[in-house]
């Protein structure tokens, strides 16, 4: 039973995909690390969610079930 060896094109694609995967992993780890730091330094959760979420004063009404 023999398999045909991978075409050079597939090796190139694999390399690109692994590179992209690695970059995404680094990005996730960075965001996770920054979040931990912000939590440890006492940054309020509202501030981390951005201004859009903190602009509306909380009235307690219309917040869903």
């Amino acid at each position: 039973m023999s398999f045909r060896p991978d075409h050079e094109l597939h090796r190139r694609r694999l390399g690109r995909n692994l590179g992209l995967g690695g970059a995404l992993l680094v990005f996730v780890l960075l965001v996770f690390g920054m979040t931990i730091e912000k939590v440890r330094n006492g940054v309020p959760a509202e501030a981390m969610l951005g201004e859009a979420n903190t602009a509306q004063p909380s009235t307690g009404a219309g917040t869903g079930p």
Partner: protein
Amino acid sequence: MADILTHDTQTEASLSDFVQLLKPRVMSLVVFTAMVGLLVAPVHLPPVTALAAILFIALGAGASGALNMWWDADIDAVMRRTRGRPVPAGRVQPGEALAFGAVLSVFAVVMLWLATNLVAAGLLAFTIFFYAVVYTMGLKRWTPQNIVIGGAAGAFPPMIGWAAATGSVGIEAWLMFALIFMWTPPHFWALALFMKDDYSNAGVPMLTVTHGRKATRAHILAYTILLAPVAIGAALTSIGGPLVLAVSAVLNLWFLKGAWAIRARDESEAEADGYRVEKAFFRFSLIYLFLHFGAFLAQAALRLNGIWSW
């Protein structure tokens, strides 16, 4: 099936082609100077945020490099030094380089904003615009002062690093900017002296082509003289200290000696010894910048321990 078999495999870029688009060698300088700007600032970021800031600054610089390679593919194809780059070599399509650069630019700026502050992100956005649009699409092909004004783009990273930490821009950040800004022309003109055919073949109006090589030698000396007080001035501010002053004095004297030697030579002498002095000056210019910023960093470490500082 025939479509699959005749698929053109040459048009698919590899990972290293995309890495090359980011100009990794330039990026290493950006990483180093941005890191120094960030670490010598009076405010200290948490470690992961600092790492992220440096990474996003480097990514923004790399993105502007990709945009530069997209626009300059015609020039790069002519010059010996650049004809192997991914776009002129046909490994990456121009549209891919444009999309890659544009998406990464936006990503880097937004992420730097979220990780640090709007001042740093704004400066990064301006740097990308300045390098990709003002320098690459404008100055580079129009004026022999391209290197002088375009050098500003390479000078911004330490200022962005400082702004990422402090949220503002102080005199120290401006002096680090000025140091790289004044260093860039002698560095590139020395390169242009011994890569002479490249720029003239590509039609880039380098000073060597428009004003001659004698004038270029004089300009190198003039900028090296102007660079010295900027470097010494930085040593006298809060990021400086006795160590920076000592290192700066030695480096500037050596740099001036090299610039004087370049000024004193003519073309026949330079050609006779294969541009030995010009090449040595170019190599030393890299050491000059590295040691200057290294001294800022070492001085900050000394200051932190309360020894040998102003």
